[in-house]
């Protein structure tokens, strides 16, 4: 059996540290006179950047995932939200997040739990999934019960997806106008003066960071794959936390160079690579072990439309292949230009396509299957996230029709009560065996 050389990622620790200080910076923002805000990982984070260099955010989904990673704390969060009367079928990240407020505790990236949940100075969110706006509306309601008034602004982006032709101007305009009002709103609620130059910087950073991530994902087309999905989870997260910040751009530049080097030298993520899969939607965070189990069969997961397309920005080339989206002709110079640019950049985020058109997502997954030389797709029917699970059965359908082997499994990215590890592993290994694979070692 052929074995590829492997190596630890060199920038691994830097990734860890960046993530660690992100949560600390938010916590300690006030000590240095800074501002802190909360919102989703998809919110237009470059807009609040115009308030100054000392503005720190806490994005809800990665925070919810961090909670999910520490099972004792998650259990307490769920208990608290259920005690408050919320149904347990709701978005698991959202329930984790509310639980943290209800318990009045804050968890850091390393699992350290701190007393008192640091309330944001304002909420800056956008809305595409049923839960986005409601998530923070309730967060705000919960804060208010604790005596903290948190103003909230939420931008509606659910105007459709530009599949074959660009969105109509009035749709872009609707989002643009909301952002434009949002700038004034930010000034009002923080009492700060808004700096358009910082905005332009942030928008440009975001565009670069999201292109870089697509470049990095593209490198995984190599055989053997230089990265596996489990590691990518720790790397793409930078984009969900601070896609608009210079640190993010710098880190992705470094990472890209390292991965290019790995490809040149034939360094593999999984030494036994002989079967390549991709997944879909967030994994059950408390059970990343499944990836280790997969390796025992020589299976490497190269990523997913989720890890590639949530942060990475892509386009179709005329020949039908999928590639990094083109850089706009020049850096924005004015507020208007910056806002329009970021709206136009964002509306075709791949991870938004499936909300509207199942065909669009199937097409993207098929592109990945082809270009990344994928043997099978593991679809996580994720009970914790209706947003990413919407239309997933249609995607399965589309893939099967295209002749791609698919393994669907049920779980929940943030509520371990809904994930059956032994059962899933048993079915997963059955799947691998039905694909003619055998376990390599115990």
């Amino acid at each position, binding site marked *: 059996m052929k074995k590829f050389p492997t190596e630890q990622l060199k920038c691994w620790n830097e990734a860890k540290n960046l993530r660690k200080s992100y949560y600390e910076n938010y916590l300690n923002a006030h000590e240095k006179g800074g501002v802190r805000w909360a919102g989703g990982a998809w919110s237009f984070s470059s807009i609040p950047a115009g308030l100054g260099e000392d503005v720190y955010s806490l994005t809800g989904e990665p925070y919810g995932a961090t909670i999910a990673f520490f099972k004792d704390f998650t259990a307490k969060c769920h208990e608290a939200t259920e005690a408050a009367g919320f149904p347990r079928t709701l978005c698991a990240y959202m329930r984790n997040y509310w639980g943290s407020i209800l318990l009045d505790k804050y968890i850091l990236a390393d699992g350290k739990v701190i007393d008192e949940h640091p309330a944001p100075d304002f909420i800056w969110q956008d809305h595409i999934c049923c839960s986005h706006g409601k998530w923070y509306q309730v967060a705000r309601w919960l804060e208010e019960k604790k005596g903290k008034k948190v103003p909230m602004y939420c931008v509606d982006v659910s105007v459709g997806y530009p599949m074959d032709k660009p969105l109509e101007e009035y749709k872009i305009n609707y989002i643009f106008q909301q952002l434009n009002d949002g700038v004034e709103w930010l000034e009002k609620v923080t009492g700060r003066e808004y700096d358009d130059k910082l905005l332009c910087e942030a928008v440009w950073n975001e565009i670069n960071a999201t292109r870089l991530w697509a470049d990095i994902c593209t490198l995984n087309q190599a055989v053997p794959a230089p990265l596996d999905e489990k590691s990518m989870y720790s790397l793409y997260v930078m984009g969900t936390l601070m896609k608009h910040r210079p640190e993010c751009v710098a880190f992705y530049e470094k990472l890209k160079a390292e991965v290019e080097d790995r490809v040149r030298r034939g360094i593999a993520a999984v030494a036994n690579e002989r079967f390549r899969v991709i997944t879909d939607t967030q994994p059950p965070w408390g059970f990343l072990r499944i990836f280790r189990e997969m390796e025992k069969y020589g299976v490497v997961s190269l990523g997913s439309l989720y890890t590639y397309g949530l942060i990475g920005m892509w386009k179709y080339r005329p020949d039908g292949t999928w590639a990094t989206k083109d850089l706009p002709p020049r850096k924005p110079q004015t507020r208007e230009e910056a806002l329009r640019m970021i709206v136009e950049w964002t509306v075709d985020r791949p991870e938004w396509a499936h909300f509207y058109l199942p065909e669009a997502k199937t097409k993207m997954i098929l592109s990945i299957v082809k270009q990344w030389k994928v043997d099978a797709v593991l679809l996580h029917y994720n009970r914790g996230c209706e947003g990413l699970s919407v239309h997933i*059965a249609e995607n*399965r359908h589309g893939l*099967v029709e295209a002749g791609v*082997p*698919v393994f*669907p*499994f*049920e779980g929940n990215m943030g509520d371990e009560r809904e994930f*059956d590890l032994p*059962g899933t592993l*048993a*079915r997963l*290994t*059955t*799947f691998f*065996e*039905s694909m003619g694979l055998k376990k390599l070692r115990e």
Partner: protein
Amino acid sequence: MITAGVDIGAKYAKIVLLEDAKNILANANGIVGFDILKSATEVFQKALDNTSLKRDQIVHVVATGMGRKAIHMKPPINAGEIVPEVIADAKGAYHLIPTVKTVIDVGAEEGRGVKVGENGKVRDFVINERCAAGAGTFMETMARALEVGVEDMGPLALKSTKAIPMNAQCCVFAESEVVTLIHSKTSKEDISKAIHDAMAGRIASMVLRVGVEKDVALIGGVARNPGFLPPLKKELNTEILVPEHPQYVGALGAALLALEMEAK
């Protein structure tokens, strides 16, 4: 060449002794007790006794089913290989019905749907997750609530033409719904039909995930229940074939795989 297939399910162990992919020399089954290896050995011995064969005349044994690991490389059976149920199911069903494209296997605790490809290979499959409400145990629990034997459930159901929906999704609550139905003086025939309908609905919705392509075969212990077939046909809107000894199909598949492995 004689091979054997052993299918150790959640409830029953089934054994098929096979000669050259043609002759089934013997089959036997028995309850899986606390000690899996012991139960399996007993059933295995029963099969041997039916033929006057000895263990060492059997060239290769392949095991499948939930308890397959317990006899993997363990004497006296010494199963040389273990395979998941869906692979054995597909193989066995394909052997009996070469035109089969979809196999539905309903056992004591698991229901499975398998799409069969060329030469009896698995193309796609689905197994029920989390809730036992769509398998044989469900029927057994309901039989107990009705105070009838599980073999009587099917014949009872066939006598009824009423459609009473069962609301509860859970085995145990369904039991209480059955109790409520008894309280409201619904006949055992109608209740039994309602139970079969509910179970067929659950199995159908699971199988539909992989899609139904003709020919369709129903195997596993529950296939012996004559009351289960009509509602399943109706739900899936298709003809369904049931081989003669549906409970042994997995074991037969294992024996066939044993032969293939030897041939290589």
